[in-house]
């Protein structure tokens, strides 16, 4: 769950600070962002390893606190993007793709002729885009998708003989009935993930139909 994103200009002036928590610790998040700036400077000025990672834009995890992790990204124009997240096992690729989308939104916001460089970004479209790129928050849902795929892969060998396959179909049905009996929020997250990953068409159909409550009726069609 991304709780805070920040854009800091090249003179370490804040251009955009947005926290996404309902709790009252926005100030604490700002403080964390402020402390991470030192780490950014340190990373840039004393690179640990030379070679292909020397001048990359993505800086990686800056430092972990007790609840949060901070990731950094430095553009060519010395603008820093910082992202504070409460997830404990975020994948590198997800963070990179988040920063890529965030960079694209920032470039569009800065290309506004009425935006004064060096002043805060006041574009509502930018704020909406940033809030939008947080979803799907990719940690809870791929695990359940992975479970789903594994279950189907495990059950595939049983489809050889008729009797065994009938039994396993029943088990699969009950398992899938349980699988989609989660709360609405998770269900919609799973739908979003399956649509975005675009490779689990069965999962898409399954979750969408379950959302509309006609799962039982059409299940048999997938297997005949």
């Amino acid at each position, binding site marked *: 769950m991304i709780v805070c994103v920040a854009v800091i200009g*090249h003179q370490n002036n804040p251009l955009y600070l947005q926290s996404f928590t309902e709790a009252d610790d926005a100030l604490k998040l700002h403080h964390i962002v402020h402390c991470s700036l030192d780490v950014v400077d340190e990373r840039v000025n004393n690179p640990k390893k030379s070679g292909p990672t*020397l*001048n990359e*834009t993505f800086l990686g995890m800056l430092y972990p606190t007790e609840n949060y992790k901070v990731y950094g990204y430095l553009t*060519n124009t010395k603008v820093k993007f910082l992202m504070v997240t409460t997830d404990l096992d975020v994948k590198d690729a997800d963070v990179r793709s988040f920063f890529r989308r965030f960079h694209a939104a920032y*470039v569009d916001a800065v290309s506004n002729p009425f935006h004064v460089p060096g002043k805060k970004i006041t574009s509502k479209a930018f704020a909406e885009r940033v809030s939008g790129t947080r979803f799907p928050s990719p940690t809870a849902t791929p695990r359940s998708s992975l479970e789903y795929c594994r279950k189907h892969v495990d059950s595939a060998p049983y489809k050889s003989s008729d009797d065994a396959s009938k039994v396993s179909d029943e088990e699969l049905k009950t398992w899938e009935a349980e699988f989609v009996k989660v709360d609405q929020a998770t269900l919609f997250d799973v739908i979003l993930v399956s649509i975005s990953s675009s490779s689990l068409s069965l999962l898409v159909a399954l979750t969408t139909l379950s959302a509309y409550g006609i799962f039982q009726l059409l299940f048999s069609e997938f297997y005949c």
Partner: protein
Amino acid sequence: MGREVAESCIDGVIIEMVSAYCKRFYATKPELAARRIEAIGYQVGHQLIERYTVERPRFSDHLEAIKFICKDFWSELFKKQIDNLKTNHRGTFVLQDNRFRWLTRVSIDPSLDINEASLESSAVTPENKAAEATSMHLYFPCGIIRGALSNLGIPCAVSADISNLPACSFVVRVKA
């Protein structure tokens, strides 16, 4: 993504902008007109470099940044690269474009101004007037280069040299 615009429209807008600032807004103060046009170019360069350096690793030194301007930035703007880059390795770079797109429509024949030459004083020759009018068109690209380089963290001064049209050289002096 997005929609496309014809190149001739862009060329027309830029020519008209220079003409408007020189003849209507600051008709009596050409230095102010030049500064305004250069400031417009500065902001445009500032924003464009932000867009064209996405997904690129950071530049290690000034020469890398200038080479980026010569190759990728120039080809995004004009669909060609800078033809010649010279440097004295002490902060001065000369970017030469043998056929600068925004100057290809500028007339280089001074004989068209014969009527005006006879009416004006001898101090202002047709060549001077033509050169002055042409140099007004160069403040905008100088501003673009200056804006792009300052956003990359390289403060500099950019001037243009039109000794042989339509080739054009931009002289970049990096401030220490």
